[in-house]
């Protein structure tokens, strides 16, 4: 099957207009030595119906949310995605457009991004947001690049209780940025502000996650203060779902708020595509990476929206740009806007409260020792299961329950610790089943 529209007679007429006798002649500029000269060795072509069947068979091999009861989170969460998200994202005018370079034809996407930027600023308490980053890991690297140029310093501090993939991505990009990465260990599941203050000396920025990777509420205002005392930019990595109930980073002294948008309006999709968000205080706007939409008018004074402050960007500033990002995650960010608009402020608070209540209820019903008993948590918590967590997961999955994430994968000495996530989709009777499975 192909998606081509030309008939044989079209082709002949077109070749004649061009003045060549065959398509082959159009490739005359290619040296003979670099021509393939054979067909590609790819599996046979498929009709649409065959694609449907083959990809259906691949999908059927996966244990998805409908096949296993999911208490697995660790950065990606099984929150409910309302049907209106699907309906909006299937609008072809939005789905099949590209970056709104021509604003008069792109007011739909531009206004949606402007509304998204507003929602992210409201959630995080920040002044400005970009139009999205790739995911919750890459926006952390973006924050480091901003901080490097804003402070001229060459070290970044990341708390060990920050998502391991976020830390790994920061460490991958830091050497190219000319940055050294220092990690601050957790103490009983949370970060010690004094320890962080010490590490923050001469740092460009301090990145902490709140609630952290263990689901624990960090002493976030104190962590931000520790960064600010060292004149390092305080960067909070936050879960949008938590921001209906938790104070936004802008209100406790952070310079930058970042996060993974998946939990707010995106399907799990085996890790992507999702959106990362990045918002900052207004003085950092000219160092922000990626697209930013601004308001303006036409000659008649009508309100409209355009890509703005583009002299930050690669297509104009080239090697001096604030980032190389071009294609971003607009469609997924649009999903986030639709989701947040569907919930509204009350709904967002309620989702957060329901997750927290379910998590507290689960802690009691499971009856297992908490890994960090003195800590308060949001929608996720760590329990000791008394034997290797991997074994527990294997046994539980045989009963159709995925009980959580094995923290020993990233943290030495935690092989018997399971990280259990509760979203508003879980029900009390499902928690009973989890308790039963884990007790077995």
């Amino acid at each position, binding site marked *: 099957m*192909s998606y081509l529209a030309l008939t044989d007679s*079209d082709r002949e007429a*077109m070749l004649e*207009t061009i003045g060549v006798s065959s*398509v082959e002649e159009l*490739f005359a*500029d290619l040296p003979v*030595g670099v*021509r393939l000269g054979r067909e590609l060795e*790819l*599996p046979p072509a498929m009709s649409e119906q065959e694609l449907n069947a083959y990809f259906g068979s691949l*999908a059927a091999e996966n*244990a*998805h949310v409908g096949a*296993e009861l999911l208490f697995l989170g660790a950065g990606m969460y099984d929150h409910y995605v*309302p049907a209106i998200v699907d309906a909006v994202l299937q*609008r*072809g*005018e*939005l*789905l*099949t457009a*590209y970056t*709104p370079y021509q604003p*008069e*034809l*792109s007011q739909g996407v531009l206004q949606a991004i402007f509304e998204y*930027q507003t*929602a992210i600023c409201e959630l995080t308490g920040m002044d400005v*947001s970009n*139009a999205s980053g790739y995911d919750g890991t890459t926006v952390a690297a973006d924050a480091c690049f901003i901080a490097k140029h804003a402070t001229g310093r060459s070290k970044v501090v990341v708390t060990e209780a920050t998502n391991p993939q976020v830390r790994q*991505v920061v460490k991958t990009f830091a050497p*190219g940025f000319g940055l050294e990465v220092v990690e601050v260990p957790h103490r009983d599941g949370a970060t010690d502000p004094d320890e962080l203050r010490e590490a923050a000396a001469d740092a460009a920025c301090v990145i902490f996650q709140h609630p952290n990777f263990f689901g624990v509420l960090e002493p976030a205002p104190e962590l931000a203060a520790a960064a600010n005392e060292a004149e390092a930019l305080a960067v909070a990595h936050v879960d949008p779902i938590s921001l*209906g109930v*938790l104070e936004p980073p802008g209100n406790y002294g952070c310079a930058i708020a970042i996060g993974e948008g998946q939990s707010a309006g995106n399907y799990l999709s*085996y890790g*992507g*595509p999702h959106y990362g968000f990045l918002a900052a205080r207004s003085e950092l706007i000219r160092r922000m990476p990626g697209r*930013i939409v*601004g*308001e*303006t*008018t*036409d000659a008649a004074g009508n309100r409209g929206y355009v890509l*703005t402050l583009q002299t930050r960007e690669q297509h*104009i*500033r080239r090697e001096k*740009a604030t*980032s*190389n990002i071009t294609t971003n995650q607009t*469609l997924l960010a649009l999903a986030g806007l639709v989701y947040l*608009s*569907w919930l*509204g402020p009350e709904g967002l608070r*309620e989702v957060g*409260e*329901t997750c*927290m209540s379910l998590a507290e209820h689960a802690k009691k019903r499971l009856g297992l020792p908490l890994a960090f008993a003195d800590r308060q948590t949001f929608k996720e918590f760590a329990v000791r299961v008394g034997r290797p967590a991997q074994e527990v997961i*294997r046994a539980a999955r045989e009963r159709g329950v*995925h009980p959580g994430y094995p923290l020993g994968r990233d943290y030495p000495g935690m092989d018997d610790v399971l990280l259990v996530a509760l979203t508003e989709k879980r029900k009390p009777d499902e928690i009973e089943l989890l308790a039963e499975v884990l007790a077995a």
Partner: protein
Amino acid sequence: MKLIYEKSHPGRRAGRPPRPEGLPRAEVPSELARAEPPRLPELAEPDLLRHFTELSTRNFGIDTGFYPLGSCTMKHNPRINERLAALPGFRDLHPHQEEDGAQGALRLCWELQEALAEITGLDAVSLQPAAGSQGELTGLLLMRAYFAERGDGDQRRKVVIPDTAHGTNPASVTMAGYELTPVKTDARGNIDVEDLRGKVDEHTAGLMLTNPSTLGLFDENIEEIAAIFHGVGGLMYYDGANLNAVCGVSRPGDMGFDIVHINLHKTFSQPHGGGGPGGGPIAVAKRLEPYLPVPAIVRDGERFRLDYDRPQTIGKVRGFLGPFGVFVRSYAFIRAYGPKLREMSEVAVLNSNYLLARLRDAYELPYDRLCMHEFVLSARKLKREHGVTALDVAKRLMDYGFHPPTIYFPLVVPEALMIEPTETEAKETLDEFADAMIAIAREAAEDPELAKSAPHGRVVGRLDEVKAVKRVVVRYLFDEHPDLSAEPAAAAAVEAPKGV
């Protein structure tokens, strides 16, 4: 049109999350609790849907009409791919799911890697980079790791980039901690090989090249260029933005490239989504495989597993395996064509040359050669003689119902119009577009104001981009939101690249 926040009414709502009864009410400690709720929109679902539907009517996608945005490969997005990506087994699969619960997904990734290796003529693939520019940065980090291990990492600091390159290339060079060495374009639109010779030595890490270039021209000296770089021990990076021209015809690996990124949203039809998502897998030669991001997907017989035990890896560039939903769509696109993928590129090149043939007399053609999948015209003559710029031509095209081409890029062509029709357009569409372009050139002589005041009858007139920079309003400010119509208009338009 009102902003969604201006349609909001306190107390109105759409979604109602579950509130299970009988559960303890969990309290956030007061010092961490939110004091003021975020001012998110408050609308009922019918009004929400109308809002977003109205936004969609104010937007132009491939589904709306012809979208020849050069270097962006705006081809048809088959809807079967949307259906497949939305299968619960893909859409609702947790990325931390154990390997035995994700065999179908892992097989799909592995098969896509195999297909991309064959298409690029290289040995190993990582699907992880989130977009083309992230693929670039990843590729440059592979170079760093490769040279560091060979002991000449400190010496090799320079990356050569031609002046026709996308802005992402030099931006990526800086972010990788390398230094930029620009090289000129010659009179035929190829890299100036003489200029190049003087700039490549033992301090060179490598080259970044788009081939065919952003001029839509295949570099005729590619074998010589590869010999120059490999002769000094440098590496060759292929920017796959224009891969749509050569699939099944010529492979970057056979041209001498060591690292390639593939833009899945361009060549393999992931819908562009108003700006994204994309996908930027990289394919590399065997000697660079050990440095690829982790995890690698390994096949053991009929089972697939993730391998994190790669001591020489550069690390991770994005979460998990990459944008999996993009892989589903792009792999389905590739499987639709199968071994005949070459026809896709042949028709992309045919459509492009046909449009070029129809337009070459009405506009200036800076490099008079057969083009590949796209070509670049100049509106310089219209500007000089009638004051009608590339921007004016672009805006006037909207009146004819077309999305404009990329303009003011590449930078080496003044008043550039960069046109990429793609393979999925019918001849009638190409003819209608050519007729419109020719009519606009004629109008420029007869009534230049038509183009200068375009677009006409759109939801907004030509927007003041300078005002948006002078008075920065990047979010709704509720009661304090300014009225920009009261602010003075800016005098001049910005002649900056629009597209790519």
